[in-house]
């Protein structure tokens, strides 16, 4: 049985402590979290979407889903990796400090990766890059020798392709 990466989309009632319940479950049961994003997606009904990337065997993934569904404020859990085709994106803010040839090279690569320059000083840039996790990783790797100073990443946001919603919010 192989360990595979899965992206789970979890819809929860946005009540106090709900995130603590979800991540507490992962730590208490020894599941791992590689990436986590959370934000309210419907203000009027107080619903939040939590996206978690985890690596586990199929059996463990099933357990994670079923254990999450035991939590009272959890509406639904969808394994996007096993479900319909989906897209994943991550955004990162990357600060690079350098001068001379390195500075020029950083700017050139940023352009090639379609990163935006959102702040610039004579000796530094902040790039905003959005894309697959691989692309972001690759860009960061390239920035290391060019004066990488600091990174802030959002974690993965994911959604299914096509016209349907994966979460059934009827009830």
């Amino acid at each position, binding site marked *: 049985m192989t360990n595979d990466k899965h992206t789970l989309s979890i819809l929860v009632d946005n009540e106090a402590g709900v995130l603590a319940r979800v991540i507490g479950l992962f730590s208490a049961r020894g599941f791992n979290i590689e990436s986590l994003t959370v934000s309210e997606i419907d203000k009027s009904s107080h619903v939040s979407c939590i996206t978690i990337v985890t690596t586990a065997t199929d059996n463990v993934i099933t357990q994670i889903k079923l254990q999450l*569904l035991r939590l009272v404020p959890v509406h639904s859990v969808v394994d996007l990796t096993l479900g319909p085709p989906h897209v994943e994106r991550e955004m990162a803010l990357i600060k690079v400090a350098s001068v001379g040839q390195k500075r020029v090279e950083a700017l050139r690569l940023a352009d090639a990766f379609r990163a935006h320059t959102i702040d610039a000083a004579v000796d530094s840039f902040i790039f905003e890059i959005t894309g697959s996790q691989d692309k972001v990783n690759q860009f960061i790797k390239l920035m290391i020798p060019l004066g990488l100073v600091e990174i802030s990443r959002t974690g993965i946001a994911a959604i299914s392709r096509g016209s349907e919603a994966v979460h059934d919010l009827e*009830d």
Partner: protein
Amino acid sequence: MVTSGPGATNAITGIADALLDSIPMVVITGQVGTSLIGTDAFQEADIVGITRSCSKHNYLVRRVEDLERIIHEAFYIASSGRPGPVVVDVPKDVQFAEYEYVGDIVTEHKTYKPILDASPSVIADAVNLIKNAKKPVFYTGGGVINSGPEASKALRELVELTGIPVTSTLMGLGSYPSSGDKWLEMLGMHGSYQANMAMHDCDLMICVGARFDDRITGRIDAFSPNSKKIHIDIDPSSINKIIQVDLPIIGDVKSVLNDIIQLWKDGDCAKEQPSLDPWFKEINEWRSKNSYDYNKTKDIIAPQYAIERLYELTKDKDTYITTEVGQHQMWAAQHFKFEEPNHWMTSGGLGTMGYGLPAALGVQVAHPDAIVIDIAGEGSVQMCMQEMSTAMQFNLPIKIFILNNERLGMVRQWQQLLHGSRYSSTYSEALPDFVIMAKAFGCLGLRVSDPDKLDDTIKEMLAYDGPVLVDVMVEKHANCLPMIPSGASHNEMILEDVLADTEVSDAGKRMV
């Protein structure tokens, strides 16, 4: 209901206990006023944070407007689906605030929706498996009890219809009567030889409201290797958690069993069933080992004998048993015979020493005229001894029946088995005189050490109208047998007392 801070933290063990045994419970904890929350105020503790992982759900009531809904929701969540403890933390200002009570009972919830009924197709699959099995066994658990008396009734009917033998976990005792001819006794680490062998050799296992706990399965990779497995459980996360099953049935035990019964009768399935006689022949051979037998010592009371006598002298009365945790608990499970559900209260999943005495008080409140006995060890009973005062205060005539081996017997047994009899901290030279102690609380205290006087002492205990403590001095080094040692499988039980010479693999020592 407990006070804030230390009162609430003292309740944690009880809450965790209820979670592991799926016991419905609503715990209302006091909290400091909302304006003081988060300031390290006097007797403040983050109870919602502390109880998050040991409760089924919890609430902090920040506004009195939410109080009614939350309390109703708490009772609904605690008692529906797979039951469990729910904590409601109520700050002081909310306690004092006034608001109109409407009285709308909650019977459903936006996101929490337990599944109660199984689909007809899985019921049909189950019936098909059952009617073709040559060596079937029912493995029942606390879920049958939790599903209510109707579930036990359904189990009994289905056993009657199919003729299939039944075993049960510690938590399920009483759902099928001990006197029933299909009864195999309890299974698991200290279960009977016939129950464990039947589990190992069966061709169909029908797990009803049980969860393949490690004390039940023994070594996982050798667990019932040749059987198809049906698993009936109200909690989807119990399915395939430990043991992969062939037919999961998610639903309430009562409803699922009744559906199976209906289909079985409609299809006149008993006609198609192969004879179970050869299976029972095997079972009866295992039974003939009398694996619960013990050494009946002449001058010293054998602990098993004390339970046997307690059973004989109370079986015609309305008797409820609670226990503490240890050898005495296992001997009670083996030697006390239960005919009805809900007459046996014990801490199974968490194994909490100190459970039995307060539990007995609760049972006595619920059944004022019944005989309620806490079968205790001298170690465990000291955990909540102070509750004898509660017994006096509220006129609760509970009976505390201590099997006093002057040892933390179960731990001593494991030190013998796993640590070469290098005993450490399992012997106390400073035990209280329990008889004097009982008197100090105003209860009756009795002591017996002569097997010939045991019956009279039990009768005196039963005749006394008030709380009684009986200190039964028993054999000090008796071991709880039979036993599946750590890392072994169901067909590798130890039947005789050879613990000192039993080899346990290193992996086994680490495992259980």
